[in-house]
């Protein structure tokens, strides 16, 4: 690259890609990953129009706290989906962690820390197994995680006899339930909000690190990624571990929020996949932004809240969710197609004709 481009050439190329902040922002909003934020804002505005008290800082922050577990699960699922795989075992991992916490911690405050550590180790281990079987044994991840889902849930139900039991110490439940009291304006900042912010920041940072870049490359074209020397198997395995760890965090929050029951976490994998897809992340890998996935979870949850306020029967929730994801993905498919056909051409026209080499390189970057 530096061989063919002098610094002045390079700045000329950069100039062409550079649009004003406002224009770049608007352009981003037109991608599926940006559109979800528009959808989210529209939904929130609609909720506030129907029920003005929702807009008060206090109830709004509680809404964020309520959505935190599913948003964290969506962030975890994002890593797996962007690498081109599926994680269907997520719901079972949530259930397993909830039951583990309920049974092992009991009333003993001293056990909270060791059991928490054990839960994280368990989560990482399940992700490791999912990842290694997918990458090294070459079993499709759909099947691996489906098997893991059946096996884990079966084990958990066998262990508990299928009934709710155990109640972890109050200090543990505070993680999902409590918050920092006495904050001005908000009154309370629930711990889940803080945890969500931390997880989101961590995920954002991770996706800008070499690991995140390689993960997207591996999802887009594993062969090409492998040929550039990336250890694709280990990158994808780590994505599975991140997913299971995120499910673990969701589980910890849900213990405080929903209590200990084997039905906690049921269907979480599909809700998380829905949220990720709603966030414009493409199934099959290689495209999408991690924070859009979290926004997808918020959009989904605010949609349910809106339906609730409008007075739609809760049984219709599924139908609306189904219709929304089909429409969202169909719209996203159209946008990606248009983008792929459209962007390269106008930039090429502005190129000085004598720099053919450079224009080629330029097209290569914008087409991505």
């Amino acid at each position, binding site marked *: 690259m530096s061989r063919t481009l002098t610094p002045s050439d390079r700045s000329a190329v950069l100039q062409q890609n550079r649009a004003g902040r406002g224009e770049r922002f608007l352009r981003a909003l037109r991608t599926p990953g940006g559109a979800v934020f528009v959808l989210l804002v529209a939904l929130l505005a609609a909720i506030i129009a129907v029920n003005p008290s929702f807009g008060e800082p206090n109830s709004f922050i509680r809404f964020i706290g309520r959505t935190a577990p599913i948003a964290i699960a969506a962030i975890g699922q994002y890593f797996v989906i962007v690498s081109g795989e599926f994680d269907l075992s997520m719901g079972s991992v949530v259930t397993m962690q909830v039951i583990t916490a309920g049974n092992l911690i009991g009333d003993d405050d001293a056990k909270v820390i060791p059991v928490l550590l054990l839960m994280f180790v368990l989560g990482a281990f399940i992700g490791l197994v999912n990842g290694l079987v997918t990458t090294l044994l070459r079993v499709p991840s759909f099947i691996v995680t489906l098997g893991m889902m059946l096996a884990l849930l079966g084990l958990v139900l066998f262990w508990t006899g299928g009934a709710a039991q155990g109640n972890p110490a109050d200090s543990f439940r505070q993680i999902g339930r409590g918050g920092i009291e006495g904050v001005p304006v908000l009154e309370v900042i629930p711990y889940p909000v803080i945890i969500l912010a931390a997880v989101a920041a961590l995920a954002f940072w991770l996706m800008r690190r070499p690991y995140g870049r390689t993960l997207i490359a591996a999802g887009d074209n594993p*062969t090409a990624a492998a040929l550039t020397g990336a250890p694709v198997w280990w990158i994808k395995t780590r994505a599975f571990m991140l997913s299971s760890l995120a499910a673990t965090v969701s589980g910890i929050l849900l213990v405080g929020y929903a209590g200990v029951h084997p039905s906690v976490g049921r269907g979480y994998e599909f809700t998380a996949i829905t949220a990720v897809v709603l966030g414009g992340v493409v199934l099959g890998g290689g495209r999408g932004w991690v924070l859009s996935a979290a926004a997808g979870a918020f959009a989904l949850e605010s949609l349910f809240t809106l339906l609730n306020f409008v007075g739609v029967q809760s049984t219709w929730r*599924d139908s609306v969710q189904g219709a929304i*994801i089909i429409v969202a993905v169909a719209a996203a498919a159209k946008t990606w197609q248009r983008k792929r056909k459209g962007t390269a051409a106008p930039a090429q026209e502005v190129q000085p004709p004598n720099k053919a080499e450079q224009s080629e390189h330029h097209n290569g970057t914008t087409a991505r």
Partner: protein
Amino acid sequence: MNKTRGDGSIFSRLSSTHIVYLVALLTLAVGSVLVATAGRSFFSPGNISSILTGTSVLGFIAIGQTLVILIGSLDLSVPYVTSLASLIAAGVMANNSANVLAGVLLALGVSALIGLFNGLIVSGLKVHGFIATLGMGLIISGYLATNFKGSFGQTPFSFRLVGATGLGPVPISTLIMLACAGLAMLLLHRTRVGHQIYAVGGNPNVARMSGIRIQTPVITAHVICSVMAGMAGLLLASRLGVGSPTVGSQGGYDLLSIAAVVLGGTLLAGGKGSITGTLGGVLIFAMMDNIMSVMQVNPFLKDVVRGIVIVVAVAVYARRRIVNRPLRFGHDGHSRQEMPGTEEAREVRA
């Protein structure tokens, strides 16, 4: 991988379908020993009949699912279609023999319509089959949950006979299922659409450039899949005597049928596989269930065994598939080593 390259070994000469039936035979052998230790006979007419009965519902759904997976899509809406068909059939029949035909036709018609929508969404709007059918399933599930609180309608005695009688130890329902399997095989191997299904599943772009209209096979596969799910719903309505809004989702037929198809050696990415293999996969599941019931295994542990068997079995094929591809450039060119990568790229798309 390179070690198994030797093409003389018996293992590499077997096709996936052969392996499926070897596994089924192994399950049979292990099962008969285990069941004998429990003091019962695996081969008693009663037991054979119960195994075959176990194959029929999952068999119907798995046949349809095979077509959809072959074309590179998935169908997660089958359990809800099954429930809906059972409700429509039982509702229309309302315990009157005269309405049997109308009930059957209406149930299958509605199922076909759902399949048509699935196919149109997948092929027309370019929505991934996973999302399209997940969404469709959710839409139907919302409708079912809103309008039906419990079992609904009643099937007349004449219709209930279908699920209850058999020729010797072979239930009528299994015979119907096998007939459907035969028809699906004819479709796949003897008709234009059947060949197009393999072509599109193998590589949609190449298929399109060869002049195949992709829409036709995709829609056909989805319609047949939904109709098969509807057949399963009819069978369940006939067995239970009523329609039920949860009968499909309780069975977990979406994921189990996909597991059975993949267990039968069909590539999840599409383009390669057979109905025969799927029937083998369904048979393995039914025998496992039967053995575990006879052994009185805890029902929760059954799921654990199922999960492990699915993954282990598929791991065996997954290793083979890489080996089994025809050589493209001589015997020891370095291009050979790129095969696993290409294969991975294909599976990622699943």
